[in-house]
């Protein structure tokens, strides 16, 4: 099964790990949120120095400090919030993204600093670079050896505990994903229709699994009992 959403890396013992790499869209969205926050910080910075300039009456040096602060603030917002947040700025937190190393591990502070050093260049080149690269790395990511991935909550999903003879991964995956979604489906008639088709297949492949079960009840429940499905 080739999954086009994921790009794999080789982990420990050369085991292939498929990382949920975040694409241009979600990363741009997170960056947009971050720049909104940064804009607020810059406004705050401007207000503080304007007040100081009036209070201290030395406008030329306060102006220099004010202007020099802008690039420093921009760079340090991203670097510091990624270091403190374990690879997540506030915008990445909102979109549920996280920076990891190219090996899938937690990046060190040095890598997080380095990937944000070239951020101003990436405003120009970043988006085309991310769109072309299968791992969606911008310049800073390439320099620091990092990736940005989606954070997925692992939710408990039904797992089949008794496999009918002749069933391969395709059947197992189909039934499991049906059972996982059966609760949330809106139209009970359609749900039962799909469940009945699975039951027909079960009757054909191994009727002995259905022995002793009341097949006139809720078909989803019958499947769960017949296949000894457990949540987990």
């Amino acid at each position, binding site marked *: *099964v080739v999954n086009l959403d994921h790009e794999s890396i080789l*982990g*420990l*013992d050369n*085991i*292939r*790990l*498929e*990382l*949920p790499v975040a694409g241009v869209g979600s990363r741009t969205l997170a960056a947009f949120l971050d720049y909104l926050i940064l804009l607020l910080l810059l406004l705050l910075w401007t207000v503080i120095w304007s007040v100081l300039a009036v209070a201290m009456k030395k406008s*030329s040096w306060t*102006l*220099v400090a004010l*202007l*020099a602060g802008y690039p420093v603030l921009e760079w340090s917002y991203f670097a510091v919030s990624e270091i403190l947040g374990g690879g997540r700025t506030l915008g990445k937190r909102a979109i549920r993204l*996280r920076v*990891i*190393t*190219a*090996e*899938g*591990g*937690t*990046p*060190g*502070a*040095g*890598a997080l*600093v*380095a990937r944000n050093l*070239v951020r101003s260049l990436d405003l*120009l*080149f970043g988006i085309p670079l991310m769109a072309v690269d299968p791992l969606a790395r911008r*310049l800073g990511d*390439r*320099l*620091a*050896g990092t990736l940005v*991935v989606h954070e*997925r909550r*692992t939710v408990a*999903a*039904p*797992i*089949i*505990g*008794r*496999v009918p003879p002749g069933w391969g*991964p*395709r059947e*197992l*995956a189909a039934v*499991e*994903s049906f059972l*996982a979604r059966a609760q949330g489906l809106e139209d009970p008639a359609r749900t039962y229709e799909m469940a009945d088709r699975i039951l027909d297949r079960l009757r054909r492949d191994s009727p002995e699994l259905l022995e002793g079960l009341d097949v006139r009840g809720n078909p989803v429940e019958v499947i769960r009992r017949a296949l*000894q499905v457990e949540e*987990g």
Partner: protein
Amino acid sequence: MDYARFVRLRRPLWERFEAQLASPPKSMTHAGLEEMALLYRQVLHDHALAAARYPGTAAAQRLRGLAVEGTRLLVAGRSEGPGGLARFFTHTFPSAFRRQLGLTGIALALFLLAAVWGLAMTALRPDLGVALLGPKAIAGLAEGRMWTESLVSTVPPAISSSRIATNNISVALSAWSGGILAGVVPLYVVLLNGLMLGAILGVTLHYSMAGQLAEFISAHGPLEISLILVAAGAGLGIGRAVVVSGDRPRSLALRDAARDALAVLLGCVPWFVVLALVEVLVSPSPDVPASFKLAVGLSLEALFLALAALPGRSPDTLGAL
């Protein structure tokens, strides 16, 4: 092994690992760490087996999640940062610089050609200088003043130097990135800058001000021209990959060319900052003797070339590019 049996046998282990991931203990004994590392490895192998034999099933998906999450928590990043940056400037940049040397030479030759042309043009027709420098600067020259004196005296140095740095970087950036248009933009930047320098030299010679011009540009000029030529050479490299990709796919040739070009460009960026400070604090200042300005200019250029000539052969940080 049957799917159900696999899940039944291995599941307690996955759950133990998941519990440890969910609440990593604040301090860990050696035995605890070893147990967690062993659990991680077992989960990783189970993940590989499930991905191969039961792809798409709930157990395979859960194992993938556990493997990714465990890898993130247990595998520490390589320590990049200061060491990585140092390696970039001592190894990656020099080797990329040398691979681009031929193209930089072409840029230099074109630059000199355009400069000679500009010089000849303004030497023969001095009134052409009005079109290049503007009437105000020419009138100033006729009275024995350089237009560069007013360049920085009115604004604080911090602001004008950052403006000059931005300007230089944007010239180099356009020379570099414009390489993607089959190398037309770097050629344009090189020829235009050469022509301008030659023409200005011709005009100042005409008004017997060439000495002042040489004094003004001696501190920052050599390095600034070198940086623009190096960036343009890198841009030409990108352009060459677009036009002549050989028997490889164009995207592959472009990627290889862009790797070197990017290393060269990134290696130039800190120099632009140094250059802007020199251009504001040293170059226009009448208190600094001309010999000192020339010494600064030559030593900056020598430092840049020495750094670029460092023998860099170790695996570079941009290797994954």
